[in-house]
């Protein structure tokens, strides 16, 4: 029997309250981990961006396009190994209009060299390069719509209106977990040749592979400087910065989620604090007895903190043990397969799981500190007079 051990036994004194508190803490931990995983999945593209890749877009906004001739010029800039280009196409599957997926027109001759984390079987790649209407799609998108190699599909254009016919020539997988496995890539030439003269030969952005990531800033400046006196000026940045600027559109949502995760922690603290405060109030008389027989204020603090930390630790552990399989094997898989554009990799990060457990522990100790302090300041005689 130890002083902390007695505190731990006190935790189970009111079993219903203890179990409800544990459930409350566990649910808060699950909700916290779910939100943290959404945030981490959302930013995983930026976090895992290639360091040797730059992206060049219109200086004003990525909605405006660049002349195609810029691509050849960029290829001549020292430090640039390869360059490719793409346009956001923005089409929908007319049979499932509410299901979003990215459609991008890419320069097929260079795309897979620059974007080497997009893995296509060699025979399918070969076939795609020779097929003007060919497309390669991510394995998650293929599964989502039941599309197979050889299928003919028609997409409905929004930015470029009309029905666009394609043939699925390949299904790509990803060498990195940050890659969206539900994108629809097709030949930029196929799109370009169908456009009016005014719209022709314009690219959305240029992706550049460079020879030395440590010179990325210099090379980016060289690219932008070379177009400084042109009518259309450019903005070149690392792929990570580009992904981050794209995420900036969702910054309000991400911030809101961050705040909600903090609110969840506060709620968890209140649940725990209420339980501990009730327990301390009910046991005031006992604390008086303990003080009378010689226990010191620090011993009462140990009783109370021991109890709180136990509840926090068990609640946190249960929450993590439930949340990890629930998210990784259940919700996460569903989201990766059906919303890969937003959540290419939806798994609980180990550091988030550890953080959630530690927060449950730390918050328990924090919220117990006030009742523990109050108990340590109890007047022994007043406490002995207190009933219940």
């Amino acid at each position: 029997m130890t002083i902390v051990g007695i505190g731990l036994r006190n935790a189970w004194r009111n079993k219903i309250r203890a179990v409800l508190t544990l459930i409350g803490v566990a649910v808060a931990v699950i909700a916290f981990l779910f939100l943290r995983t959404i945030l981490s999945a959302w930013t995983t593209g930026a976090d895992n961006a290639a360091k040797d890749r730059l992206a060049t877009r219109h200086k004003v906004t990525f909605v405006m396009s660049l002349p195609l001739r810029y691509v050849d010029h960029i290829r001549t800039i020292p430090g640039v190994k390869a360059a490719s280009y793409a346009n956001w196409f923005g089409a929908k599957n007319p049979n499932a209009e509410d299901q979003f997926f990215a459609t991008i027109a890419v320069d097929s001759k260079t795309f897979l060299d620059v974007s080497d984390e997009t893995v296509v079987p060699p025979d399918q790649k070969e076939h795609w390069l020779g097929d003007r209407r060919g497309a390669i799609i991510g394995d998650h998108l293929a599964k989502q719509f039941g599309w197979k190699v050889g299928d003919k599909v028609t997409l409905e254009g929004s930015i470029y209106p009309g029905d666009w016919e394609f043939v699925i020539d390949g299904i790509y997988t990803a060498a990195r977990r940050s890659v969206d496995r539900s994108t629809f890539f097709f030949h930029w030439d196929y799109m370009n040749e169908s456009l009016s003269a005014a719209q022709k030969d314009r690219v959305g952005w240029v992706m550049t592979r460079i020879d030395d990531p440590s010179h990325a800033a210099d090379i980016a400046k060289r690219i932008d400087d070379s177009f400084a006196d042109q009518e259309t000026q450019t903005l070149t940045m690392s792929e990570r910065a580009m992904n981050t600027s794209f995420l900036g559109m969702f910054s309000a949502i991400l911030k809101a989620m961050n705040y909600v995760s903090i609110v969840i922690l506060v709620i968890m603290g209140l649940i725990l604090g209420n339980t501990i405060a009730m327990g301390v109030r009910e046991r005031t008389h006992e604390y008086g007895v303990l003080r009378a027989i010689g226990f010191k204020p620090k011993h009462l603090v140990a009783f109370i903190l021991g109890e709180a930390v136990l509840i926090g630790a068990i609640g946190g552990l249960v929450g993590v043990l439930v949340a990890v399989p629930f998210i990784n094997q259940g919700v996460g898989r569903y989201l990766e397969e059906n919303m890969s554009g937003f959540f290419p990799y939806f798994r609980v990060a180990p550091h988030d799981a550890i953080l959630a457990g530690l927060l449950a522990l730390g918050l328990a100790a924090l919220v117990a500190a006030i009742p523990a302090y109050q108990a340590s300041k109890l007047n022994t005689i007043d406490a002995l007079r207190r009933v219940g």
Partner: protein
Amino acid sequence: MTENGTAIIELKSITKSYFRGSEQLDVLTNLDLSAPEGAFEALMGPSGSGKSTLLNLIAGLDRPTSGQIRVAGSDLVSMGEADRAKWRSNTVGFIFQTYNLMPVLTALENVELPLLLTKLSSAERKEHARVALRVVGLEDRGNHYPRQLSGGQEQRVAIARAIVTDPKIIVADEPTGDLDRKSADEILELLVRLNTEFKKTIFMVTHDPAAAERATIIRRLDKGTLQ
């Protein structure tokens, strides 16, 4: 002094006042008391006469407004709170009217509780607790929780807890107040035994004349003054 000639409890010119707003309430007034070592004293008096206040002062739970208190050789007035807590754990055993056992601990663990403040090993603590339970006749109830014991048994466990540190003084606040006559008699018999056989000085507050009769000295307190 009386009996053994040595006073274990000595109170001189004790005044204890409380303040309710600006109003001063004098609970004890200029009180002198001297109790010999090995005595079994009963303190009687009507409600509000200051019995519990006097007991708290003797047990080192409270300090007087003025006066001197010397118990078991220690000057309690000059001691700080932490020193008095340590002094209590070594010198005084407490018996309360409502037993005050911890419900989450077994009888043996309740008795062991004060020994957590000592340097004894776990095995030594358990052995001491068993001996104390044997003294009160409850060795076979060591694994029972308080809810599994009768009122008389709970009070006997509380007495075992009070004596487990081998204190010089036992203070008892209405120790039979919650018990039926038969259980009360058993408890009083046990207190007499602790006094005669184990030489414990006992200071007991009681309303019960039958309980007071077991004491060797009976004092009466009325309106803060010993009669």
